């Protein structure tokens, strides 16, 4: 196994008085794609939010060897963790291009930003066509692409993707997952992917975690998980 | 803060005074004793009218001076002043608190026509003096129906009549334009002027403004367009200054009659610009502390010394501090006259028996006179003209004919 990019141990998280995560452990490999599977309400989104400091959590999180738990979201993001939230987090009143610029807001190397914007347009030509348009007027698929593009503008080491396929047509989903695979290779971005569509996720990912009601049930290489009988029955539906 | 400090001072003084044997024939009502006289007051210390709070604070400072000088006939004044935020319901609450809970001998200088109207009936039903109220409405001098209420300052209507007399004599062919605040104060002035003119001089334009208006520029332009050559300016200081300035800007130079409320040199005419204010006519009854005319006046020096010692944070350019000082002196005079008979009835009786009382900050020659049928303490005023730096008194001291 390659070097460890992020290591989380014993993560517990709460919404008000209600505990949602019960001591989750997670290890993400440098350069890999990991997926987190689980039913609705299992705590997947919460885990992502805990990783980027958006929800109160206990335990330990090390990103590239340094502890980040308890830091502000902005600071974790600035270390290179790009979180593509559920609902896409589009800045609806701003234009497409402004959305991309917002993604690069924490970077110091301003000169490189226009080039990066062009690179994002290279992956998502549709965005280029609509660069001057209010982002709120984009279709769902386009907004999802914009969200990924915005995350890319950060030049992240790790991308946290929260249900990127949600509400999109199958064709668009397939297209997008293909782009994610390309990004992983050409941009050297590690990914943690939360998905309802387990089959799709397992195809893309090389490692998988399965959680249920805030607890880890099983983890291992995607191929192994896909082969597991019980998983197949409850998550893959065949 | 102020009243609490006073309270403690008077309490301490009281302990000393208990030892002296009570003299015979002392009569007291609630709120008065051998050692102290409790006086209530209601002022707007908060809210949009909090500018007036200065009066209440000046009075408090003056009573402290009185106490430091030994009190009135050996009794210290316990001054309890409450905030009504210029809201009539709050005024009722505070008046009842003063009368029923603090048990004051009288309420003094409660401020504002609406607030005083709200407590008018209550005070008379309770037979507690509502003395020297701080408003110039005419209704406070009605001893037949309201024997427990008395005003103090010249009322707005009679001032309006003074201007009318002036116009009838000097500008019988004039055309009058009026700017007035759209409330009881503004309307009283207008009524006084109209009654005084008796239709003999034409009023060509009237423009009201709301205290909430940011400026009166629009009104001034309309009034100028009416072709009037006499301007009656019934505004509070801020709007008076705005009007004077705007008139200067647009080059309108009518005969300008400015109500007494806003004729302070320091806080109206100077901000508006002396050049613009030159030639304005007004009436006066108290000395303007910012007018160089009184620079060497003994009364003014006394007032300035009081301000420095007892109310250093108070604004010396505001006429409110002079007003508060003088009205407080009037009450002290009444209480002195009461002697050892500190009943509410006697307070009203003495308040109605002021004879040629002339506090030092009233204009020379103006005197306070009251009787059982005359509940208007100050009825005299004198006209004055602004020379560009100071007021110049002219003509005789005029007694305003009180209307209705």
């Amino acid at each position, binding site marked *: 196994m390659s070097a460890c990019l992020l290591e989380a141990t014993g993560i517990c998280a709460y919404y008000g008085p209600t505990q949602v995560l019960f001591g989750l452990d997670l290890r993400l490999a440098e350069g890999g794609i990991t997926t987190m599977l689980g039913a609705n309400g299992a705590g997947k989104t919460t885990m992502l939010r805990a990783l980027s400091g958006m929800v109160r959590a206990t335990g330990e999180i090390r990103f590239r060897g340094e502890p980040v738990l308890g830091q502000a979201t902005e600071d974790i993001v600035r270390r290179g963790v790009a979180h593509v939230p559920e609902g896409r987090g589009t800045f609806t009143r701003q234009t497409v291009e402004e959305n991309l610029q917002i993604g690069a807001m924490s970077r110091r190397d301003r000169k490189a930003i226009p080039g990066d914007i062009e690179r994002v347009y290279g992956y998502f030509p549709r965005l280029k066509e609509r660069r001057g348009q209010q982002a709120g007027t984009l279709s769902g698929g386009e907004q999802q692409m914009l969200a990924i593009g915005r995350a890319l503008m950060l030049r992240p080491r790790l991308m946290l993707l929260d249900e990127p396929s949600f509400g999109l047509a199958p064709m668009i989903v397939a297209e997008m997952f293909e782009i994610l695979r390309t990004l992983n290779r050409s941009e050297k971005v590690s990914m943690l992917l939360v998905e309802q569509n387990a089959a799709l996720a397992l195809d893309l990912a090389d490692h998988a975690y399965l959680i249920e009601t805030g607890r880890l049930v099983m983890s291992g290489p995607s191929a192994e998980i896909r082969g597991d009988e019980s998983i197949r029955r409850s998550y893959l539906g065949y | 803060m102020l009243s609490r400090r006073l309270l403690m001072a008077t309490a301490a003084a009281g302990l000393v005074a208990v030892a002296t044997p009570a003299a015979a024939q002392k009569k007291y009502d609630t709120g008065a004793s051998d050692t102290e006289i409790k006086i209530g007051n209601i002022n707007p*210390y908060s*809210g949009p009218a909090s500018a007036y709070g200065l009066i209440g604070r000046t009075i408090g400072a003056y009573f402290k001076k009185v106490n430091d000088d030994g009190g009135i006939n050996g009794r210290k004044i316990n001054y309890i002043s409450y905030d009504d935020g210029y809201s009539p319901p709050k005024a009722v609450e505070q008046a*009842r608190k003063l009368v029923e809970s603090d048990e004051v001998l009288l309420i003094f200088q409660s401020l504002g026509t609406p607030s005083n109207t709200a407590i008018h009936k209550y005070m008379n039903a309770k037979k507690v003096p509502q003395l020297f109220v701080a408003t110039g409405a005419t209704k406070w001098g009605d001893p037949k129906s309201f024997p427990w209420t008395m005003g103090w300052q010249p009322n707005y209507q009679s001032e309006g009549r003074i201007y009318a007399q002036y116009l009838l004599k000097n500008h019988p062919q004039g055309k009058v334009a009026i700017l007035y605040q759209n409330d009881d104060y503004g309307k009283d002035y207008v009524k006084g002027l109209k009654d005084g003119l008796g239709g003999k001089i034409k009023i060509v334009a009237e423009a009201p403004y709301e205290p909430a208006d940011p400026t009166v520029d629009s009104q001034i332009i309309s009034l100028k367009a009416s072709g009037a050559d006499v301007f009656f300016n019934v505004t509070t200081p801020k709007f008076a200054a705005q009007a004077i300035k705007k008139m200067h800007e647009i080059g309108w130079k009518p005969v300008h009659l400015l109500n007494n409320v806003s004729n302070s040199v320091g806080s109206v005419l100077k901000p508006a610009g002396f050049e613009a204010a030159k030639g304005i006519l007004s009436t006066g009854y108290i000395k303007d502390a910012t007018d160089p005319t009184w620079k060497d006046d003994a009364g003014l020096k006394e007032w300035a010394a009081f301000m420095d010692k007892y109310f250093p944070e108070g604004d010396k350019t505001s006429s409110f501090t002079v007003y508060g000082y003088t009205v407080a002196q009037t009450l002290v005079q009444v209480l002195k006259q009461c002697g050892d008979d500190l009943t509410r009835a006697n307070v009203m009786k003495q308040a109605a028996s002021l004879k040629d009382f002339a506090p030092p900050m009233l204009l020379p020659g103006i005197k306070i006179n009251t009787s059982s049928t005359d509940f208007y303490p100050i009825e005299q005023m004198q006209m004055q003209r602004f020379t560009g730096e100071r007021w110049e008194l002219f003509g005789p001291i005029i007694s305003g004919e009180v209307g209705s």
Partner: protein
Amino acid sequence: MHDRAVAHVKSPPAGTLAGVSLDIWRRLAIAGALAVALAVPFAAKNFFIFQMTLAIIYAIAILGLNLLTGFNGQFSLGHSAFYALGAYTAAIMMEHGGLGYYWTLPAAGMVCFVAGFLFGLPALRLEGIYLALATFALAVAMPQILKSTPLEPWTGGVQGIVIIKPDAPFGLPLNSDQWLYFLSLAVALVLYACAVNLVGSRTGRAMIAIRDHPIAASAMGINVSLYKSLTFGVSALYTGVAGALGAVAISFVAPDSFTFVLAIGLFVGLVVGGVGSIPGTLFGGLFVLFVPNIAEHISKGLAGAAYGVILMLIIYAMPSGAAGLCRLIIGKFVRHGR
């Protein structure tokens, strides 16, 4: 943003405290409060009775505002206008109609209901901050309208109307302060009971649904426009009745009594009492009446600043109002039934 604006109504928490069910505690608390309320007029000075009467009246007005804001999610910074309308209705009926004050209460309520309903119709198109501004404009304009020349024959212009303070009827051995206190208390009890029933009814659930999920509510077949306007009307009705009671208790109405300062006072009372809490409005009423007195006691020259600081501290201490704080405290001691 819109649904963030209002606290959620907690259904009464089921649980026990010291082995007794919370419901019983609640009944005991209400009974205790009522006993104290009934004892006040016989134990306190007239002046204090009068103050408590005013506090009850303000609480009724705040309750009206709470029905609108707390349970229906509509802002209002202009309820002083309805309070004024109620007060003037009462005063004009007594002065010009020669009617007894007891007739004026339902009349003021009806007038304000109609006015509120009518105002609620255009207000439908306005949301959040825009509605707040439109209502605030109403509060600012009201005193000017009241003193305007065309209405002067009825309103008495800036001089207002002086009303005769009523004595206790049927030869009851009460002075007029005690009588007005009991009258206000009785009216308040009726109105509070109605409010509790309203909030728990089908209508109330529709109101709350509109507050939380307006789109879903209309999808469920709730006539959102009608309910919102009706709520505005009911809210104005409560505030108008309070205004009429206030006019009788103060025995005087004038435009200066009903400036936007009153509107802001009611609004502040609503928030410090607890948005969406019916008992919290009582705290709101007490706050509106007593905190300015406390503030001026701290400093005369800085009375306004003292008021502001007290207000800030209260918000820090109980961000969701007195009701929220109570829930929190009870929550600490309660053992949940689950």
